[in-house]
C-alpha cells in the first residue's frame, strides 16, 4: 500500500551507495568464487602473465563501461562506443605515423572522441531522436568513416614508445589498469559528489522534473555523451597501443559488453540507477569468465552462451530483489 511509509531500503544518490553495497557485495562474492574456482581448475590462471593479460583486457572494456554507465544513468544509451574505439585507434595511429608527437595526438584523439559524443548529444537533445537510434546512426557513420580514413587497412609501424604505454608496469601493475582505476575514482567522485553527477541522476528519473527544477538539459546531455565517447576514445588508444597498430575493425560489439557490465553492476536502462564500483565489478566478471573459459578450453561459442545467460541471471535476480524491496 503506497500510502504508508514503508521501511524499505534507501536509494538514490545518498541512498544509492547503500543499495549498491547489496548489489556490489553479491558481485564481489561472484568475483571471489570465480577466482577460487579458476585457480583450482586451471594451473595457468593465477600466473602473473595471465593475470596481467586479464587486467589489460578488462581495463579496455572497463573504461568504456564507466562512460556507458553515466549515459545509462541519464536513461540514455550509446551504441557508438565500439566504433569510437576503432576510429580513435586509427586516427591516433595515423597521426603518429605522420610524426605527430604522442603528447599531441592522444589528447587530440580524445577530443575527437568527445566531439563524436557531442554529435550524439546533438541528435538526442536538439533533434529529439531516441538515444538508441541516434547512436545506432552514429555507430554506422563512424564505422564507415574508419574504413574510408584507413582504406580498410591496419595502420602499423608505430613508434616503439607508443606500444610501451600498454606494456609499461608500475610495481608490477599494468599501466592500463592504473588508467582504468584513475577513471573509476574520477567517475565515482563525479557521480557521488558533484552537481553534474546529481543532474545525471535527476535527468534519468525524468527530464521534465529536471527541467522544472531548474536543470538545463542541453549542457548535461552534451556532457554525458561527450564524456562517454571520450572514455571510449581513450580505450581505443590503449587498445591500439596494446596491439601496436590501429585496427579498423577494432571494438566490434564492445558497446554490448559495456552495457552488460553496467547492468550486471546494478545499472538500469530506465535510468537513475547504477554505480561506478558496480560497473567495474561487472566488467571484471565478464572478462574473467571469458579468460577462464579460454584457459579451461571451453568451446568459445559455448562461452558466449554462458555469458549471455549470466547477464540475464544477474539482471533478473537483481530485478526480483529490487521488486521485493519495493513491495516493502
Amino acid at each position, binding site marked *: *500500500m503506497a*500510502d504508508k*511509509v514503508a521501511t524499505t531500503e534507501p*536509494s*538514490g544518490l545518498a541512498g544509492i551507495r547503500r543499495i549498491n553495497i547489496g548489489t556490489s557485495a553479491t558481485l564481489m562474492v561472484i568475483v571471489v568464487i570465480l577466482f577460487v574456482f579458476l585457480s583450482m581448475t586451471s594451473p595457468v590462471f593465477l600466473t602473473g602473465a595471465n593475470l596481467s593479460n586479464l587486467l589489460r583486457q578488462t581495463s579496455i572494456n572497463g573504461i568504456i563501461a564507466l562512460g556507458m554507465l553515466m549515459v545509462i544513468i541519464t536513461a540514455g544509451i550509446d551504441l557508438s562506443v565500439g566504433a569510437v574505439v576503432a576510429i580513435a585507434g586509427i586516427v591516433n595511429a595515423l597521426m603518429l605515423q605522420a610524426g605527430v608527437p604522442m603528447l599531441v595526438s592522444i589528447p587530440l584523439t580524445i577530443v575527437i572522441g568527445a566531439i563524436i559524443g557531442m554529435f550524439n548529444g546533438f541528435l538526442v537533445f536538439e533533434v529529439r531522436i531516441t538515444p538508441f537510434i541516434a547512436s545506432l546512426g552514429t555507430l554506422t557513420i563512424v564505422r564507415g568513416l574508419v574504413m574510408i580514413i584507413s582504406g580498410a587497412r591496419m595502420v602499423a609501424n608505430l613508434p616503439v614508445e607508443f606500444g610501451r604505454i600498454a606494456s609499461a608496469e608500475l610495481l608490477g601493475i599494468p599501466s592500463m589498469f592504473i588508467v582504468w582505476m584513475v577513471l573509476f575514482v574520477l567517475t565515482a567522485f563525479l557521480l557521488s559528489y558533484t*552537481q553534474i553527477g546529481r543532474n545525471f541522476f*535527476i535527468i534519468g528519473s525524468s527530464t521534465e522534473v529536471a527541467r*522544472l527544477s*531548474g536543470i538545463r538539459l542541453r549542457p548535461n546531455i552534451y556532457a554525458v555523451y561527450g564524456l562517454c565517447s571520450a572514455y571510449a576514445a581513450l580505450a581505443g588508444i590503449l587498445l591500439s597501443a596494446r596491439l601496436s597498430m590501429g585496427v579498423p575493425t577494432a571494438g566490434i560489439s564492445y558497446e554490448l559488453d559495456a552495457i552488460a557490465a553496467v547492468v550486471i553492476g546494478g545499472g538500469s536502462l530506465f535510468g537513475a540507477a547504477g554505480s561506478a564500483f558496480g560497473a567495474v565489478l561487472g566488467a571484471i566478471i565478464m572478462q574473467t569468465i571469458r579468460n577462464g573459459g579460454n584457459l579451461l578450453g571451453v568451446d568459445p561459442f559455448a562461452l558466449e552462451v554462458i555469458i549471455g545467460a549470466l547477464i540475464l541471471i544477474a539482471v533478473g535476480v537483481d530485478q526480483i530483489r529490487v521488486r521485493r524491496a519495493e513491495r516493502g
Partner: protein
Amino acid sequence: MAELIAAHGITKVFPGVRALDNVDFVLQPGEVHALVGENGAGKSTLIKILMGAYRRDEGTLQIKGREIREFNPQAAQAAGMAAVYQDISLARSLSVGENFYLGRMPTTKWGTIDWTGANARCGDLLKDLGLDIDPRVPLKSLPVAKQEMVAIAKPVFEGADILVFDEPTALLTNEETEILFSIIRRLKSEGKGIIYISHRMEEIFAISDRVTVLKDGRHVKTLPVADTDADELVRLMVGRSMADMYTIKRATPGTTALRVEGLTREPRFRDINFDVRHGEIFGLFGLIGSGRTETIRAIFGADPIDSGKVYLHGKPTRFGHPSDAIAAGIGFMSEDRKNQSIALPLSVRTNINLANYPAISRFGIVDQAAEREAARSCIERLQIKTPSDEVRIRNLSGGNQQKVVIGKNLTTKARILVCDEPTIGVDVGAKGEIYKVFESLTHDGVAILMVSSYLPEIMGLADRILVLYEGRQMGIVSRDEFDEERLIRLASGLQA
C-alpha cells in the same frame, strides 16, 4: 435478489501495517455505494481485494451470492465486475472502438476483423450514452476528459453489473460529470451496483445512496446519505470538521511581488493581467481546459509566451527557462507530482535539494553537509514522515511527497511560490498541514500564486481569485465578494 457483494471481516496485513482490519462491505443491486476515507484509510486495498487483485488474509467474500475462496482479476471480470481507475488504463494508440473490444475484436466469416460492425456497435453505445465520440479515432487524439469518458463507457459496453469508479471526475468538466451521473443513474435503474470513490463531497451527495467511511483500515460507519451531511462525513473520516481546515490566519499583504500584463500564448490563454503581493495568496480558478496550468507554467518559464510582460518587484523580466525563475526566487509545484515534481527513484534528501544544487555547490562540487542539513531542516519543519532522508521518495505517501515538494521550494528560499493544485492526491490530514505551511509562508512575506479547481479550498485560502474560462480572464474576485455560484458562473463563461 441477493446482494451483489457481501464482504465480511476482511483483513489484509502488509509487512508492518494492517491495511484493512475486519472491514464489512455490502453492495446491493441498484445501489450506488460511496466509499470515503483519507488516503491510506484502506479504500484502494478494499477495492483491490474485491476485484481480485489482492488476496485477503481473513474474512468472507460473496459475489452475487456465491462464496468466493480464491479470487483473481480474471475471475472478477468473468463475474461481471469492472473498475475504472483515475489513471486511464487503456491502450492510447488504439482506436476508441478497439479499446472497447480490447483483444476480443469481432470477426467476419472470413476470419478478418469486422471493423464496420464493431465500430457501429461502439458508436451506437456512445451516442446512446450522450457522448459525441467517433469510435474510429485513436484514443490519444481525444482530450483527457473524453478519454476518461471512454474508460467509463467501456465497462458499460461490456455489460458489467458491478462497477467501481475510482475518482472518476478528477479529469472531467461539469458537462461530462453530468453525463457520468446520468450513466450511473441508468446503470442503477437496471439493477446494477456501483461503488463510487471520490474526495468530492458534493458528488457523493448528488449520486450515492449509501456511504461507507473507512479510517486507518477500519470500518467506521455505513449510513444512508440522506441521513448525513458533509460535515459529519469529514468528522468521521478525520475526527475534525471541515470548516476549520480552510481557516488560516491571514497575513497583511505587502508590496507587489509579481505583476503580469497582457500575457498571451495562443491558443491556450490570452491577455492575462494580475498582480500578486507579498504575503498574499492569489488564486487562479478555472475548469479543465481553461488554461490555468498553462498560464502559470508560462510565468515560470516552463513554456514560451507569444506576448505580454512579467514584472518582478516592478522590473520587467522574462524567464526563458525555469532555472531563471528559480534563480529569481520563484518556486514551482506542478499538479503532476509523479511526473513533474519529484524524482521517484531517488532519495528524499536528493528530492528536497532538487533545485538547490547550484546554491550548495562550489566549482561543481556538492557540499554534502549542506545537502544533509537542508534535508534535515525540511523534514523537521514540515514534519515529513520518513524513516530517513535516504529512503526513496516513491515509498512515501502522497501527502509526504507533496511536503517534500514544498520543502524543495523552502530550500531555495523562494519568495514567490507558484503552485498548481497543491493538495492533489493528498489526504485530508496532510491537506490541513499543507495549509498551515502556506499560512506561515504568507506571514513570512512569501507571495503564493495558487491554481486550484477545488472551490472550498481556493475560497478558503485565497485573498483574491482570478477566474479563467477557455484562456480568457473572466474577472478577479476579491475575498469579500467570494461566492460559489458566482465563481462557477464565471468559470463556465457566464458573466457574474
